[in-house]
């Protein structure tokens, strides 16, 4: 069964009562939210609060143990859903980049388009070059991942995800593995994307990014969305004690 994107007015993603347990360990519990087109949502919280697991569940790198994930109104946890096809509509940017080591920068951005989207080499290269230009790495098309810096790798990873024309981009702590020096260049690219109404769900420890760029902020604690709201309400007037403590710990640093 193929997923036909954009045929309904349903939100891009609707997460309903999502739960994930590893053995007896409840990592996610009753997570509920929608992602509307053009929205930027930041997910903050201390490590172990389930942020990354949430993202990994959304593109099924982890299989949720309960609840529903509706993509354009269709539950992708149903049997018979073409999971690779679904994933191709949901871009993912990893903390550890995960660029293909056996390919050049250009081929990293081309291979998915050709294999999954069945685009011709010429068409795929044109698109790849367009997005590599966008992230400022057009000069590096012939480089291999091991030859470029962490920040550059992450920008290639963003271009690779964008080249698939995803409906939503998931960022899993995209700057956590980077030198402080190169964090800025990646955040800058992400700010540009937000400015272009690209739908993003960003797990991050960059509070300035969460505050300035996102429309909504989720604070996760113990596997639930403990508090959510506009950046102003979360950062200026947090209501829950855990949120206040988390933020004060962050600001103290």
């Amino acid at each position: 069964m193929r997923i036909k994107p954009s045929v309904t007015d349903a939100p891009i993603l609707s997460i309903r009562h999502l739960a994930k347990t590893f053995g007896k360990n409840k990592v996610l519990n009753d997570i509920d939210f929608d992602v509307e087109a053009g929205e930027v949502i930041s997910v903050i919280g201390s490590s172990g609060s389930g942020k990354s697991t949430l993202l990994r569940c959304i593109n099924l790198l982890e299989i949720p143990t309960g609840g529903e994930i509706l993509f354009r109104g269709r539950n992708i946890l149903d049997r018979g859903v073409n999971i690779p096809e679904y994933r191709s509509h949901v871009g993912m940017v990893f903390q550890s980049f995960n660029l293909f080591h056996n390919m050049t920068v250009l081929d990293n951005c081309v291979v998915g388009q050709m294999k999954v989207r069945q685009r011709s080499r010429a068409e795929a290269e044109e698109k790849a070059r367009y997005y590599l230009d966008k992230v400022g790495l057009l000069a590096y098309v012939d480089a291999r991942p091991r030859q470029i810096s962490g920040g550059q790798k992450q920008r290639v990873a963003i271009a690779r995800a964008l080249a698939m024309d995803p409906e939503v981009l998931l960022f899993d702590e995209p700057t956590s593995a980077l030198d402080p020096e190169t964090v800025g260049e990646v955040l800058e690219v992400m700010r540009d994307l937000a400015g272009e109404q690209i739908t993003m769900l960003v797990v991050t420890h960059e509070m300035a990014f969460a505050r300035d760029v996102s429309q909504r902020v989720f604070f996760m604690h113990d596997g639930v969305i403990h508090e959510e709201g506009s950046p102003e309400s979360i950062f200026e007037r947090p209501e829950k004690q855990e949120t206040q403590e988390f933020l004060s710990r962050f600001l103290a640093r």
Partner: protein
Amino acid sequence: MGKFQELILDIGDLWGQYGALYLRGIRSTLVLALVATAIGCVIGFASGVLNTIPYTKNDSLLKRFVLKTIRIVIRIYVELFRGTPMLLQAVFIFYGLPYVTNNMYRFNSIWLASILIVSINTGAYMAESVRGGILSIDPGQTEGAKAIGMNHVQTMTSVILPQALRNIMPQIGNNFIINVKDTSVMFIIGFPDFFAAHRSAVGATYLYFPSATVEMAGYLTLTLLASFILRSIEKKMDGDRHFELAAADQLVMAAGTYRHRGEKEASYED
């Protein structure tokens, strides 16, 4: 010194009479080792891929059953052929086929039988090497491929296997060198390899030691040559340490008239 001269003379005699036989033997040995290693690699990669198809509790019972069965069959295959001597496997398969089919089928070609046996044997070793090679690749590579919508086969063929192949090149080389030497046991079903040439030569001349010297030197030359070639292939696979910035493109772009490479080349012809 006298002994040494005698040896040289004997080898000269042997080569005069049987040189062509030795050379044909070397050719057969090389062809068998090459073909069987290649087929063995194909078997190994196929089993490696089948062996690593992931399944979860959410998958249908049929899928899980099929995948489990595949894994068990591969396991039996590996253990059976890794755990018995190739000499015996040759006899077992070569004489077994006519025996169990009441002479309906038999190996009409010693070549076919030998390639089959050595390939199956190599495949059993390669299956484990490939499995190890696949497991050695960072799981992030698989996740990166899955995240852009690749299925298991695409992930394997485009991302994992090329990297695993590089990692197991030393083992492939190892297997090839082992095959160059161990194909000598195929004399048991009459395969005319380099070692078989020795058996023919000494049968008539009784020059055991001189012929064995020729064989030793011959095999060593083959294997040293193979090591050398394999090393250079590995080096080539690693590629350049440096890369060129596509500087021309950037300059053109800065001027606001970005063009693709192909178009630029065309413009030179104007």
